[in-house]
């Protein structure tokens, strides 16, 4: 028998062995990262809307409360998207000729609703109820981010299950006084002790069982 391989093959063989392990590790890492990236979650991505509504302007600029438009957040699973008539309460009088607002006026005129693109979209097998979260001291900003700083709306958090569980496993780290629910700027000075007290006060029973959300 004579030599089949060159001396360099030895190095190649060892490198490729470690390389394969390295490659698999990288592949796993890439998949995991992709799965958590905004490519999969749409976190932080501004979606095209029929009207470029600015929460920044309306909330921070004009000081309109969340509840003015999202009227049902305290009583229903669904926070509510305002009907065109709500927009027209003000826009009958101001900016009533703005071309940007033409879809709103048209909807109001014709009764055909505006079709907004959904920004926060949980999968259909998840049952989420706004009212209980608001009632137990979870602020809007905890899940929706600093909406008052968003000229155009985007999803601030990943909305993946691990993100839900992060809070459900330790609600004291996220709870706030009920008076501060709609306060976008509220920051706790002592979350841990304050949170534990609120958990007791509001009798929060953070549920972890599957059937709470997957009914």
């Amino acid at each position, binding site marked *: *028998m*004579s*030599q*089949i*391989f*060159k*001396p*360099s*093959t*030895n190095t190649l*063989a*060892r490198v490729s*062995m470690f390389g394969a392990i390295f490659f698999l590790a990288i592949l796993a890492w890439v998949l995991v990262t992709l799965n958590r990236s905004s490519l999969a979650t749409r976190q932080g991505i501004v979606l095209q809307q029929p009207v470029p509504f600015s929460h920044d302007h309306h909330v921070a600029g004009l000081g309109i409360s969340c509840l003015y438009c999202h009227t049902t957040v305290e009583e229903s699973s669904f926070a509510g998207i305002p009907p065109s008539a709500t927009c027209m309460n003000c826009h009958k009088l101001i900016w009533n000729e703005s071309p940007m607002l033409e879809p709103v006026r048209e909807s109001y005129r014709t009764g055909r609703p505006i079709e907004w693109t959904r920004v926060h979209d949980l999968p259909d097998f998840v049952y989420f109820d706004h009212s209980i979260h608001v009632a137990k001291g979870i602020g809007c900003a905890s899940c929706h981010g600093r909406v008052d700083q968003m000229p155009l709306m985007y999803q601030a958090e990943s909305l993946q299950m691990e993100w839900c569980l992060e809070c459900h496993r330790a609600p004291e780290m996220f709870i706030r006084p009920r008076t501060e629910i709609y306060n976008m700027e509220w920051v706790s000075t002592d979350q841990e002790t304050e949170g534990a007290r609120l958990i007791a006060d509001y009798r929060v029973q953070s549920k*972890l*069982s599957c059937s709470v959300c997957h009914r």
Partner: protein
Amino acid sequence: MSKAATKPEFALMAEFRSSRELLHAIEQSQAAGYTQLEAYTPYPIEEVWEALGQHKSKLPLIVLIGGIVGAFTGYLLQYWVSVINYPVNVGGRPLHSWVSFIPVTFETTILFAAGAAVLGMFALNRLPMPYHPVFNVPRFALASRDRYFLAIGSWDPKYDRRATEEFLLGLDPFEVNEVAS
């Protein structure tokens, strides 16, 4: 027989027809003061590596470590998952239901130990090594059939191209070859 090499050779290698001849040659070489010896046989012969002074393999220790690591990995994974990260009450069983954790712990122990055995064996044997100077000898192909080879490394302090070849030829081999490096 060997040809003149431009590079310094790797070793000299004698081919024998039986394991008894090989063992005899090893004894003679060691008696002659050679220390850098290596024997090649078509099947495992305990006397050969004993003769070459290899009494204890490090492998059992590696396997033991692998097994212990596997056991801890398996058990701690289950403990962390079931008690710390994802505690679920299943029919009132304790979160740390160690009895239920035994099968998986056992399996990971075996898995890690077996992995350590195989990888350890390759590592100790410096494999993979598709290229090796001994393959330069055409008749070395018979090492995987029915011939027995003894090689004396050129880095042996007592090595001398001519004297060593003479010595090997004196052991009544089938033939002696120079192993080009």
